[in-house]
C-alpha cells in the first residue's frame, strides 16, 4: 500500500474519486432516508458539509507544507503549500455557494451575519484568498516563499475558530450535527456522509496532484527556455 499521497498513481486516484463520488450520490439519493424535519433540502448537507471539511483539510495541508518549508526548507514545499491553499479556496467558494443555497431553502435568506459559523468561514476564505494577492505582489524567490509560508501558518489558526464558533457562541441558527455525543443522525445518513467526504477528499487530492504536476512542468520548461536562449 502506498505510504504517501504522491506514491499513488494519479489515474488510480482520479478513478477512485469518480467511483467514490458516484457511490456517494447513489447513497445520498437512494439509501439515506429523507429527513423528517427539513425534508428533501437536507440532502444538501451531504455535499455542503464534506466540501467545507475538505476545504479545512486543504488549508491545513497548505499550512503543514508551509511549516515544512520554514522548518526543513524542503524542496517544493512552498509550491505544495500554494497548490493546497488554491484547492482550499476552490472548495471554500463551493462551501459558501452551497451553504447559501441551503440557507435560502431552510431559513429563507441567502446569507445571515448573525451566524458565527458563516462569518468565521467567510473570514477564513477571504484570508486565504488574499494569500494569492500577496504571492503575486512579491518577486519569485526565497523571500516570497518565506512570506507566503508565514501567512499560510497564520491562517491555520482560523480553522479551529471557525469549527468551534457555533459551539462556543451558542449559535442557534446554524445547526450543530457533530456534538460530543457523536453525529446526530442515523447510521445510513452517516454512511452516506462519510462516503461523500471520502469522495471529495480524493477529488481534492487528485486536483492537488494535477495542479502540482502542471506547476512543476511549467517551472522546468522555464528553466529549459533559459538554457536554450
Amino acid at each position: 500500500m502506498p505510504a504517501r499521497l504522491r506514491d499513488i498513481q494519479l489515474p488510480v486516484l482520479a478513478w477512485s474519486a469518480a467511483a467514490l463520488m458516484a457511490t456517494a450520490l447513489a447513497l445520498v439519493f437512494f439509501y439515506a432516508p429523507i429527513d423528517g424535519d427539513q425534508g428533501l433540502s437536507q440532502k444538501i448537507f451531504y455535499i455542503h458539509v464534506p466540501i467545507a471539511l475538505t476545504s479545512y483539510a486543504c488549508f491545513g495541508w497548505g499550512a503543514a507544507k508551509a511549516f515544512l518549508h520554514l522548518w526543513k526548507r524542503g524542496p517544493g514545499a512552498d509550491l505544495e503549500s500554494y497548490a493546497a491553499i488554491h484547492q482550499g479556496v476552490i472548495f471554500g467558494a463551493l462551501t459558501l455557494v452551497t451553504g447559501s443555497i441551503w440557507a435560502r431553502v431552510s431559513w429563507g435568506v441567502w446569507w445571515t451575519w448573525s451566524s458565527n459559523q458563516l462569518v468565521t468561514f467567510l473570514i477564513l476564505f477571504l484570508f486565504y484568498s488574499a494569500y494569492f494577492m500577496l504571492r503575486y505582489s512579491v518577486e519569485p524567490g526565497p523571500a516570497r516563499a518565506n512570506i507566503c509560508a508565514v501567512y499560510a501558518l497564520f491562517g491555520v489558526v482560523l480553522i479551529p475558530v471557525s469549527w468551534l464558533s457555533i459551539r462556543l457562541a451558542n449559535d442557534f441558527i446554524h445547526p450543530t450535527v457533530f456534538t460530543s455525543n457523536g453525529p446526530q443522525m442515523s447510521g445510513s445518513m452517516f454512511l452516506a456522509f462519510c462516503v461523500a467526504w471520502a469522495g471529495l477528499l480524493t477529488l481534492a487530492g487528485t486536483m492537488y496532484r494535477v495542479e502540482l504536476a502542471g506547476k512543476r512542468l511549467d517551472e522546468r520548461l522555464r528553466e529549459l527556455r533559459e538554457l536554450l536562449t
Partner: protein
Amino acid sequence: MTTGEKYVAAAYLVVFVGVLAWVAIIASKLSRLERDVEELAELARRKAGSG
C-alpha cells in the same frame, strides 16, 4: 419539481459546474504547456542544426 428539489438540484449542479470549470481551466493550461514544449523543441532543433 418542488422548491426543495430545485434547491437540492442547484446545490449539486453548482459543485458539478465548479469541477467542470476547473477541468476546463486545466485543459487550457495543458494546451499552453503543449505549445511551450513544441516551441522549445523547435528551438532545440534549430540550435542542434546550427551547432
